[in-house]
């Protein structure tokens, strides 16, 4: 067989490392990958393909690929391992993990993953088959994507993303679609391509079709240079800016009044005495806490908003009043009679919402954010008047402790300007055909715990509302605490799959190192040796996306991953986890992997084989997973009523759930924990704002440093410093510098550039040196910016972390730094 065959498949996970979705053509000759290309017929990437996917031939047959299971024979952290067979590896894992389960309970095993890839469902499958609810995304404050999803679920019931016509046949040419007049790019840089299940360059397609850009970024990004308005924001002050936009839009009445009246909870009454929602149970002793009250301007009386029926009724009558016969007041102050004959003064949620923006005049916001007042006003007006307009936000939104109030403010922008679920706006994103593999925040899938009781010991579940309501993961900072405290129960083992906390995802990595040292049993599953794997007892070699089958239903389209090649010795994650799931759970639900795939895909009416043949599928018209205007059509709610999947059924300007959780129900800004304003004491010694995480097109987080074609694009750990700042600190481009603060220090190569402002340095993340094999840990602590980032700074709801806005100083490195 010397012929080249071409296999059509979908990128996701190991390989490019990203969130996937691109259609590719894998050219296979004699069982080897000889070339990879973008599939021109695929609606997602339309023939295009990124640098990391194009480097697959260097990745898949890399000489350093792990190709046999390994057993640790030395100390933890050392490089002493011996090869064992897959059978022996599985037997050891089964025996050790069953012992932990017997002695300490299944929750004593933590199942840890990195970024959102196809490993998500399969790691849940394994953890749940073992009986543990403790699936961990290993980033402090879980601060990537989950917080944004949970925040939007809280106030609008579903997540939403910018509309690049990805839902439609024919994409941009589909007559249903409208090109946005304006797009706000909020904390996102394109060169690294694709975040959050979107194809980054769709934005370029839209710009060519006329979309004008507003960029919010402290760095001079590609977008910043090509924007109508560039708002060079001080990191961590985004909520103040969003509130400033809202201030302008409300003051100048640039909002969509019909949306405000019909689809928000604006008329809900809020008690002035408690500052909380007036509920039916306040008016009538037999009333429900889940029903709310509005003031009807026609009758001059309070009227109940019955959330179970999604309609108005009087407090005496169970019959609904016709909508046209109720005119809920949006503004004003009302005296409401309580059952004890006392009166309580109430105002509306809209009044309270407006009040929350009062302090954020453009002038006040300029002081906080450093963005000039006039630019704030112009940008707010342009966004609000553009029709349609959308917002695309990046991960910096998650990387601040008060992430939910920030999302609340930004989501209120797209809602109040009438851009929610309209063509070219921000549209609800549900998995295609509602085919849900696993428990993403807000969606329960095919893979779940057998018994809800097994969820009781999940770490962080009872500490934080969103973790109880939407996020079926443990809270990461709490997990590390518990490893050291054994309170309320000991953590004994860790399953660590394509996740490298010592080099990438772990903040304060020396603390992670101590945690890894303390555990009784660690399994690592990965493709290349790395520092974290050196702490594992058993290492299993995993496969790239080209070596496996899978399904992908992260928004659209519904796709299969089709196996193109095998690499001897390696096994796909799903096969590893499926085998062990069967061993841990005698009643494991699925016989064969295809049985599981078929069940996940069932809502589409296709099985794996059928979809695999077809390649991809888009949901049909009037399906709940396809836009537009689903809240108007009654497609979002299970009861078929108009509105949203929130406690009130409305877009909540005032969040019921946040109030229930004892948190602020309105958006607000709070100065983050380590800034020149909040910590002037630290600022004296560390007078530069430290930001990290700017993306590189060459790497996905801690991956790809060993792929020659990619490493050559970005060979060194770089720290960007403005020329004026560099001069002040006597640093030249290309010199090695130490970036340090009160937590730790790390070594970077100075890149002197006007891309960053004078007051900030940007240090790149995920750096380790696979080529420095003389060190078992590949010098993972040397240029690791996480050495300067503390843990346990999550917000009040357990989400977010100060990753984008710390303080530091810089200096030339000295001999003493190498001792």
């Amino acid at each position, binding site marked *: 067989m010397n012929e080249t065959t071409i296999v059509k498949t979908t990128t996701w996970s190991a390989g490019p490392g990203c969130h996937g979705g691109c259609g590719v053509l894998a050219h296979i000759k004699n069982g080897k990958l000889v070339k990879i290309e973008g599939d021109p017929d695929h609606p997602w990437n339309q*023939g*295009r393909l*990124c640098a990391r996917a194009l480097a697959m031939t260097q990745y898949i047959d890399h000489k350093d690929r792990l190709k046999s299971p390994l057993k640790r024979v030395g100390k933890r952290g050392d490089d002493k391992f011996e090869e064992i067979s897959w059978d022996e590896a599985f037997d050891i894992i089964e025996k050790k993990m069953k012992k932990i389960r017997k002695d300490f309970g299944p929750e004593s095993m933590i199942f840890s993953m990195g970024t959102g890839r196809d490993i998500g469902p399969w790691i849940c499958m394994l953890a749940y088959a073992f009986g543990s609810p403790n699936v961990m995304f290993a980033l402090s404050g879980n601060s990537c994507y989950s917080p944004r999803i949970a925040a939007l679920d809280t106030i609008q019931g579903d997540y939403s993303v910018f509309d690049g016509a990805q839902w439609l046949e024919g994409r941009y040419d589909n007559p249903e679609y409208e090109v946005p007049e304006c797009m706000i790019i909020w904390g996102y840089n*394109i060169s690294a391509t694709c975040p959050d299940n979107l194809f980054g*360059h769709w934005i*370029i397609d839209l710009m060519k079709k006329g979309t004008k850009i507003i960029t919010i970024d402290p760095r001079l990004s590609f977008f910043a240079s090509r924007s109508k308005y560039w708002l060079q924001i001080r990191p961590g002050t985004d909520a103040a800016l969003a509130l400033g936009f809202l201030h302008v839009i409300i003051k100048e009445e640039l909002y969509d009044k019909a949306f405000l009246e019909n689809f928000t909870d604006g008329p809900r009454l809020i008690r002035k005495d408690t500052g909380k929602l007036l509920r039916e149970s306040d008016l009538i002793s037999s009333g429900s806490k889940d029903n709310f009250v509005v003031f009807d301007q026609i009758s001059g009386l309070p009227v109940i908003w019955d959330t179970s029926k999604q309609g108005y009724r009087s407090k005496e009558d169970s019959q609904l009043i016709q909508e046209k016969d109720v005119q809920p007041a949006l503004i004003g102050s009302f005296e409401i009679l309580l059952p004890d004959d006392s009166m309580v003064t109430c105002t509306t949620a809209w009044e309270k919402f407006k009040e929350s923006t009062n302090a954020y005049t453009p002038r006040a916001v300029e002081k906080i954010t450093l963005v000039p007042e006039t630019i704030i006003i112009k940008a707010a007006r342009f966004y609000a008047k553009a029709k349609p307009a959308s917002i695309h936000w990046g991960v910096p939104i998650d990387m601040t402790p008060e992430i939910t109030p920030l999302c609340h403010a930004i989501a209120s922008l797209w809602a109040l300007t009438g851009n929610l679920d309209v063509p070219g706006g921000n549209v609800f994103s549900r998995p295609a055909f509602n085919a849900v593999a696993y428990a993403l925040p807000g969606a329960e899938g095919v893979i779940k715990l057998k018994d809800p009781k097994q969820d009781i010991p999940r770490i962080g579940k009872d500490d934080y509302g969103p973790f109880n309501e939407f996020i079926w993961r443990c809270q990461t900072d709490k997990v590390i605490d518990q490893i050291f405290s054994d309170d309320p129960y000991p953590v004994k083992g860790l399953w660590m799959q394509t996740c490298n906390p010592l080099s990438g995802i772990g903040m304060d990595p020396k603390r992670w190192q101590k945690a890894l040292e303390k555990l009784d049993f660690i399994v690592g599953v990965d493709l290349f040796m790395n520092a974290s794997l050196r702490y594992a007892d058993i290492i299993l070699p995993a496969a790239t996306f080209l070596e496996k089958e899978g399904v992908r239903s992260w928004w659209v389209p519904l796709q299969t991953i089709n196996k193109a090649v095998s690499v001897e010795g390696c096994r796909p994650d799903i096969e590893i986890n499926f085998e062990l799931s069967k061993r841990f759970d005698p009643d494991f639900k699925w016989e064969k992997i295809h049985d599981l795939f078929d069940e996940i895909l069932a809502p589409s009416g296709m099985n794996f084989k059928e979809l695999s043949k077809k390649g991809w599928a888009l949901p049909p018209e009037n399906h709940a997973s396809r836009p537009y205007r689903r809240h108007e059509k009654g497609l979002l709610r299970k009861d078929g009523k108009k509105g949203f999947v929130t406690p009130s059924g409305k877009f909540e300007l005032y969040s019921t759930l946040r109030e229930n959780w004892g948190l602020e129900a309105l958006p607000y800004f709070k100065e983050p924990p380590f800034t020149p304003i909040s910590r002037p004491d630290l600022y004296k010694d560390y007078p530069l704002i430290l930001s990290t995480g700017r993306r590189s*097109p060459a790497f996905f987080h801690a991956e790809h440093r060993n792929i*020659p074609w990619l490493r050559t694009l970005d060979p060194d750990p770089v720290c960007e410093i403005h020329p004026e700042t560099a001069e002040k600190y006597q640093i030249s481009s290309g010199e090695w510098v130490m970036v340090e603060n009160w937590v730790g220090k790390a070594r970077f190569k100075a890149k002197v550039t006007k*891309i960053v402002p004078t007051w900030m340095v940007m240090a790149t993340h995920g750096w380790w040196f696979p080529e420095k094999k003389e060190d078992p840990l590949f010098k993972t602590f040397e240029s690791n910016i996480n050495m300067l980032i503390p843990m346990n700074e999550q917000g009040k709801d357990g989400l977010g972390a100060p990753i984008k806005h710390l303080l530091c100083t810089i200096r030339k490195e000295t001999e003493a730094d190498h001792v």
Partner: protein
Amino acid sequence: MSESKKYGLLIDYEYCTGCFTCQVACCQENGWQAPLTGIKVMEIVQDMPRDKAYLTFLPFPTELCVLCAKRTRKGLDPACVKHCMANCLTYGKFTDLAEELEKKPRMVLWSPL
């Protein structure tokens, strides 16, 4: 005007995002080992008045560029053009590309061969 037989690359550098796809696509197609490549993306931070700056990326075909002769003979685009994430590279006859060049600013026409 007689039709040119010469082919080149039209680069719309307004939209080059610096994703480096062209560079890796070239290496894969032509078997270059890093750091060799037939096209290189340059980052240009332009100084502007009032201490401002403007960021541009510019793909530059190196001395190693052969305009993917093996591909173009088969009627295919060069590997860099095929994969460009921003669709900002065009391969074609000089006469045709020159017409495109007239239509919008911030473009450059390379003649590697």
